[in-house]
């Protein structure tokens, strides 16, 4: 009894490209390869994470070295210098300023008071001038003073001479002080 009823002879029948065994082997190989790639990636990830943890521990160690009391004195010194740098920006030299200011006060003029406050940065000058002519010349002279930003006339009133007091024109001026001039040690 002939079981093969195909007309094509078995020798001339085309062999399949992938046999069952080969297909199985290839499939298993592919799965092993995939698992291998996954395994390698996971291993490397674990290794890098462990390296990162190690590095982070070292970073914390270095940071604690820096932020602890070890360098507190150095940090404190630097902070003091930073603050002082700003503080000395506001340091003023009143001796030099007043000496220079005095050059711009006419010999006939006598001051009775002088006051300055940093908040206003204006110097209120009260004094006595023999007459209005001298007072006007005084104002003009003060306007030439490099340490004065501006000179503002406030008031003037005539004062009669007393037994011990000098008569003349009592005046009040407001002189805006130039901060740069004030912060210079020598003019």
């Amino acid at each position, binding site marked *: 009894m002939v079981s093969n009823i195909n007309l094509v002879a078995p020798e001339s029948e085309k062999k399949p490209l992938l046999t069952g065994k080969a297909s199985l082997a290839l*499939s298993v190989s592919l799965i092993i390869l*995939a698992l291998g790639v996954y395994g390698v990636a996971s291993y490397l990830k674990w290794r*890098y994470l462990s390296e*990162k943890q190690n*590095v982070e521990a070292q970073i914390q160690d270095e*940071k604690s070295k820096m932020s602890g009391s070890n360098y*507190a004195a150095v940090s404190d010194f630097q902070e003091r*210098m930073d603050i002082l740098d700003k503080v000395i920006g506001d340091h003023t030299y009143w001796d030099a300023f007043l000496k220079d200011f005095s050059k711009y006060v006419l010999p006939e003029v006598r001051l009775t008071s002088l006051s300055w406050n940093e908040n206003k940065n204006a110097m209120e000058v009260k004094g006595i001038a023999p007459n209005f002519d001298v007072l006007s010349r005084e104002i003009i002279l003060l306007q030439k003073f490099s340490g004065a930003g501006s000179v503002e006339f406030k008031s003037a009133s005539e004062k009669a001479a007393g037994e011990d007091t000098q008569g003349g024109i009592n005046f009040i001026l407001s002189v805006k002080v130039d901060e740069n001039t004030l912060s210079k040690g020598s003019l």
Partner: protein
Amino acid sequence: MIKKTIGIKVLIFPLSVGFLIVFAILFIRPAFSDMMAARKSAKDGSQQLADLESRNAKLVAFKAKWESMEEKKIIEGALPGDQGVDDYMSELYSRVSRSGMLLNNFATQDSSYNSPYVCSVGVGTAAGGAAQSASGISPAVASPPSAVLSGTAPSAPALCANALDVTMSLNGTWEQLLSFLKYLGDTNRIANVKSVVVASGVGGQQGESNPDLLKVDLLVQVFYKPKSEASNLGTISSLTSGEGFDESVLEKIKGIVFTAYEEPSVSETGERNIFK
């Protein structure tokens, strides 16, 4: 039947390829990107560690330099760790004496002048904040409260100093005033003048009016900064990222503290007593 069996076997391959694709999408790809992320962060961490190690090495050098610096005392004197005014008062009193002026009154209180480098009000108003005054002053008479002497200064945030207003009332001649102001500009503890009032025609000690005598009211601001117990990472970072301590600031402070005293030369170049 035999052909069918072979077909199922062959079908395993496309099935496994499909499985591979799904597996790659679900597991391999995330694992790979996680690995790459971990690699990047490990690399970044290593760079950060190298940077920190180099900063720490710099700090060791800065600390060694700082330990040998003579300017430490100048800085501590210019900006002390507590508000104690006894040293400043002693220095001021000796300068008042040298200038020939008479100190009538001396008082301190928490500063009312705000500057960007002064800690906000409330931070520096603890120990010794109340005004203290003394007449016929001497350092022993006007000693500050015990809290100040014990150094229990309030803590201050970084990069701001606490400030005290020191008011003083003095009598003296024009020349003495200039001499005192010259000294005042060069004190070891940095003091910034905030207000000046000079008036003439002041009564003398016996009550008679002396035309040469001037009454001077001065308000100066002095500063203090409590010592830091731990390093400030910001400060350390800026210190190590640069070339170290700013020499120019040191020079400026030395310029103030070490200024050679010169007798004021009144009237030689046109200056004169404007109150006479």
